[in-house]
């Protein structure tokens, strides 16, 4: 067993060993090992020419990563909390995802922006957001968000090897969670959802933190005679709608569980694809258990009010199967 946290450093290290052009940069990622300890060991193993501490300059970090990626390197940039992507959003929204297209394919941008995403730790409104939906608004970015230690390693391998830019969301609430370590050479392709549990009554789709939550809910529902498919999307882009549609074909019911706010949440995109292409498969309304449309409050009791919980998933599914 290993932790999700350790798997981040492990996943990066494996690629740095394979490929000299992989370099890391970010705030306090060097000797300190990162504020979440997700880069521990990299500085010792690879030294200051491969692991670079930066000033607090999110635009320079991601912009420099872009320039390096265009000229032969494979930078892995850390933006400490995903909320801070807002400070370099121009690079994520306007520069990195567009430069290949707008130059007619003259350049490629093989970089990874890693960031600690999500809530549940009581960090308040500016350090707790799930912002994978921000990234989903922008064509030209690939988006990974693993839910297990092995997937962290396997998706990191794909991300770093990808010739396309990837935003890699590491969920803060999962850092301490444990799971089987990734086998040697483990690579998880993008756009391939994992069917983690099979049922017949309802499809529950989750991502990152909402995957364990969906699994727990499914256990509880099973005790009450409701059998759920649980689908872990793993990546938002490419989006594995085939797996979702295949599951809904069996279950006729869909519940999407997402931590980002309902308004503009990625679950809406999933639902709308099913509404367009799977309408005939459905026996009931689709449901989204999403973050409330409010900033995230500090107090944990309040935070529980506004982010998805097992109870909310169970209640939603039960209401749905009774539809």
């Amino acid at each position, binding site marked *: 067993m290993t932790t999700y946290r350790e798997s981040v450093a492990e996943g990066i290290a494996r690629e740095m060993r394979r490929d000299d052009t992989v370099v890391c940069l970010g705030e306090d990622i060097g000797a300190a090992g990162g504020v979440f300890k997700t880069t521990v060991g990299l500085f010792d193993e690879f030294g200051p020419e491969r692991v670079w501490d930066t000033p607090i300059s999110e635009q320079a970090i991601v912009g420099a990563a872009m320039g390096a990626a265009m000229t032969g390197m494979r930078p892995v940039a850390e933006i400490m909390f995903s909320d801070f992507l807002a400070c370099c959003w121009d690079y994520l929204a306007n520069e990195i995802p567009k430069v290949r297209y707008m130059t007619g394919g003259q350049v490629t941008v093989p970089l990874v922006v890693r960031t600690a995403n999500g809530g549940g730790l009581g*960090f308040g409104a500016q350090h707790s957001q799930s912002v994978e939906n921000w990234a989903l608004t922008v064509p030209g970015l690939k988006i990974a968000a693993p839910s297990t230690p092995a997937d962290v390693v396997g998706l990191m391998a794909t991300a770093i090897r990808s010739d396309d830019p990837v935003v890699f969301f590491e969920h803060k609430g999962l850092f301490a969670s444990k799971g089987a370590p990734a086998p040697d050479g483990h690579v998880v392709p993008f756009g391939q959802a994992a069917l983690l549990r099979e049922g017949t009554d309802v499809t529950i789709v989750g991502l990152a933190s909402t995957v364990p939550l969906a699994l727990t809910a499914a256990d509880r529902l099973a005790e009450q005679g409701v059998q759920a498919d649980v689908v872990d999307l793993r990546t938002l882009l490419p989006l594995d709608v085939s797996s979702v549609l295949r599951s809904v074909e069996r279950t006729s019911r869909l519940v999407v569980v997402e931590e980002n706010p309902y308004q503009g949440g990625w679950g809406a995109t999933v639902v709308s694809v099913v509404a367009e292409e799977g309408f005939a498969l459905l026996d009931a309304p689709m449901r989204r258990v999403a973050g409330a449309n409010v900033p995230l409050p500090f107090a944990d009791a309040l935070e529980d*009010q506004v982010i998805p919980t097992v109870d909310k998933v169970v209640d939603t599914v039960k209401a749905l199967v009774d539809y």
Partner: protein
Amino acid sequence: MTDATTTTTGTDAAKLLRRHETMAVIRRTEKAAHDLFMSGLVKGTTHLAAGQEAVAVGARGALRDGDYAFATYRGHHHAIAWGATAEECLAELMSKATGSCKGKGGSMHLTKAASGMLGSYAIVGAHLPMAVGAAWSARLRATDQVAVAFFGDGATNIGAFHESLNLAAVWKLPVLFVCENNLYMEYTPIGTVTAAANPAADRAPSYGIPAELVDGNDVVAVEDAVARAAERARAGDGPTVLEARTYRHYGHSRTDPASYRPEGELERWLERDPLTVSANQLRALGTSDDDIRAAEESAAATVEAAVDAAKAAPGADLAEAFTDVWADGGAEWRT
């Protein structure tokens, strides 16, 4: 840029004793926050300002009621200097309904808007333009208010710093940029990531902004420097950058044991603890040890009572999760 020399000009002992007591309240509050964290009663994270009290208290001392302050996630000292009670701060940290933000803000967002302390912001540098805007507003409304932004050495490397200084200079706004240079951005020595020895003060001249280096552990020196800057601002002479050299006694945040510090560094700074400095100044002004001790005991009693009250207060009201999004008090997003 001039090096401010410590002066007690205009400082009478009674006033200084009040500053000393406020600093002691902050110190005790930080200690309490630390202890409450360790015992599990404070969750999330905290960034303690113990060691940096003199900057907040000196600055507030030099300013007037109605002047604005904008602070960072390391902002307990600014909140208290601007009149937040230890109780409402600690209650906020403990997720209580009586917290200054009803438990919705937490340590990183202490706010006391009623007395002009307009918030603590947790995105490094983000509040600098806000302070510029508050100063612009003062000018537009033709008041003689000034706005002050407190920020760390690390914040001087982010784009918002640059945009703020330029705009404030071009518009000649009554805003004070007060950098608390505590030598570190999180775990990284500031010198290793910054192209200027004094990250704020050395850059001010390139915006045509006057700058002053000040001993951030000397409340009198801070108060004098801020008073000079505020006078310039109110006279219409525009912004000032102050860089206060200081030191945080704890690590960056609750998870940081600060093992990156060179041996002896903390000890050297503890010798110049702001409370030691002000106690010595008080003695030089003739204040008795008894009076100093009485002020410190009063501070301790205040914080002890605050801890008790905060502990006894009810937890955050669950209904508050869905209030205060909009000015009408609610959170409705659809019709």
